[in-house]
């Protein structure tokens, strides 16, 4: 072989941060090729996708609106991924959060009290936690793979939401549309930037990012999570309980996904609909990886992936491109990132010469 992979003596810290940047650049290049293949003017398409959405104040606010669930879920999932706990059912936990939190809103429909919104948040968090507790229980008690159970529960959650909005929770004055009542003002998140849809959830998200940062870098819980993930044997000798880490990771993921779901229905949407998320729970997995499983990284990765949603909508409106382009971009970004990550632990070496070459 002409080029071979050689293990680096030490993991390259440089590459940890450079890899997402290279991946993004490669995604853009592939995007140009993709647009050419589709017969679309690629300069215009890329502009519509990545620049146009943030050329105005409303766009920046929308970036925050879309980034809120992505960051909130991504930051929680990254804790679990560090511990090798693969909760990929965040989409379902988000849905349960929306159901439970939205249920509170419908129960107190017309009640004008400052306590409604906090209660809804508690409902959302508990709903998400409850849904995540199932895979946690099945994994710790019966050794059932949490990837598969949490994912199956996502399908169940979506169907459950569908039952509710088609049946008991349907708006009595809604002409039989599968929608709940529109939440009353006391059950709607306050907007924090006048004239936009940016809501209180954005502030809470930033607080959560800071809290998880402290949790992971300064507390014994964060230390346990990292040890159990990287060196399970060492963790066992230190007396750390793997099961507790599994429970903690899944419940945290569920809680934040549930909260994100509640934010969606009491913020931008304002009611319960059969579909309440364009796959935020899945995209958050990409966010966690692009963000290097670090809270600050996740924050920026969340903004980037939020832009891909806005870009998809903008390109659909201005250039009549299919919305599915968003998913293609997201998938490519993760592919390239995973490929570039090889450079953290390995380096390419040309076999002809002695010198190391960084690819």
């Amino acid at each position, binding site marked *: 072989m002409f080029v071979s*992979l050689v*293990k680096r003596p030490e993991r390259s810290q440089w590459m940890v941060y450079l890899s997402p940047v290279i991946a993004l650049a490669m995604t853009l290049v592939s995007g140009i090729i993709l647009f050419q293949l589709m017969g679309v003017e690629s300069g215009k398409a890329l502009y519509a996708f990545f620049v146009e959405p943030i050329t105005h104040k409303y766009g920046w606010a929308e970036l925050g609106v879309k980034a809120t669930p992505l960051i909130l879920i991504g930051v929680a999932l990254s804790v679990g991924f560090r511990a090798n706990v*693969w909760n*990929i059912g965040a989409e379902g936990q988000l849905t349960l959060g929306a159901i439970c939190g939205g249920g509170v809103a419908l129960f107190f429909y017309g009640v004008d009290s400052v306590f409604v919104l906090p209660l809804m948040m508690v409902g959302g968090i508990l709903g998400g936690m409850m849904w995540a507790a199932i895979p946690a229980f*099945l994994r710790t008690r*019966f*050794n*059932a*793979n949490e*990837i*598969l*159970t949490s*994912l*199956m*529960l996502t*399908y*169940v959650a979506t*169907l*459950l939401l*569908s*039952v509710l909005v*088609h*049946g008991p929770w349907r708006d009595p004055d809604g002409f039989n549309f599968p929608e709940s009542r529109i939440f009353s003002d006391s059950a709607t998140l306050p907007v924090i930037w006048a004239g936009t849809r940016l809501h209180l959830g954005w502030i809470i998200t930033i607080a959560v990012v800071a809290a998880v940062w402290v949790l992971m870098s300064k507390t014994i819980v964060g230390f346990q999570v990292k040890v159990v993930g990287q060196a399970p044997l060492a963790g066992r000798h230190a007396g750390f309980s793997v099961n507790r880490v599994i429970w903690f990771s899944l419940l945290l993921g569920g809680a934040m996904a549930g909260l994100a779901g509640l934010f969606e229905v009491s913020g931008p949407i304002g009611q319960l609909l059969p579909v309440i998320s364009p796959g935020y729970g*899945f*995209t958050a*997995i*990409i966010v966690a*990886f692009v963000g290097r499983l670090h809270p600050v990284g996740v924050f920026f990765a969340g903004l980037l992936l939020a832009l891909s949603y806005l870009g998809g909508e903008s390109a659909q409106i201005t250039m009549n491109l*299919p*919305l*599915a*382009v*968003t*998913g*293609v*971009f*997201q*998938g*490519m970004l*993760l*592919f390239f990132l*995973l*490929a570039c*990550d*090889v450079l953290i*632990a*390995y380096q390419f070496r040309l076999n002809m010469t002695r010198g190391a070459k960084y690819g």
Partner: protein
Amino acid sequence: MADILIAAILTIITAATPLVYAALGEMITEKSGVLNLGVEGMILVGAVAGFATIHSTGSAALAIFAGLAAGALLASVFALLVLGFQATQVATGLALTIFGIGVSALVGQDLVGIAYDGLPKISIPLLSSIPVIGPLLFQHDILVYGSFALVFLVAWFLKNTRPGLVLRAVGNSHDAAHAIGYPVIRIRYMAILFGGAMAGLAGAYLSLAYSPLWIENMSAGRGWIALALVVFATWRPWRVFFGAYLFGGITIFQLHAQAFGVGVPAQIMSMLPYLATIVVLVIISRDINKIKLNAPMCIGKPFHPTA
């Protein structure tokens, strides 16, 4: 009564066939020591490629081949990443699914709303006219026959052939296999491609025979159910086959129960296959020794030849 029963069993066969393909393919991949979570994505690209081909050429043979090739092509991306670039298998598999959903929706946007008659049924002369057994076993489309053949082939390959033994060796101890001189990476490459090709066939069956049309995300979690089936079957081909028919049965049962107007909302019945997957997974995983005894020992572990 017999007619109704035959009709019911026939629909179970159609529901089980895609699962047979996808799960047997994934089983071979896992036997080589690689966990590919991208089955759902590979099924979808297989489905859209198959349907696009039948729409533009009208040839069923080409369409089936296109599905197979598309699944294998996507799998080769996975293989390149996890074998060539040492990427994490779990994350790469997830990326494959996300990418597959997006790409299939993009390619298929112009195909929505077009119908196709479905793959032609091939009746085997004489045998197909036997009462009861004839319609059950000898009046199917080519992919159903193929799924019967596949389970025999896979079982025979793993148990009785030398390459099958080598595949299992690579999955159980890649270091030992490498030391003896087997090309671990190349064998895994082929196993991953086979898994992708079979997932592609599963997709082609969905869009050409099961419900001959294209809808975004039409696999509806079958890729994940296939992954669970492999665990349920403890990596044994005949149990995979049996499991696929069990799930096919559950899927059809919930459809019929809806049609008969059971006093339960349709969505609750639709939850059944997913809930059944969880239950089955729990039952089989409960005994940790059983899993340990049967699972390929190197599954999910990266291999980097040092010498």
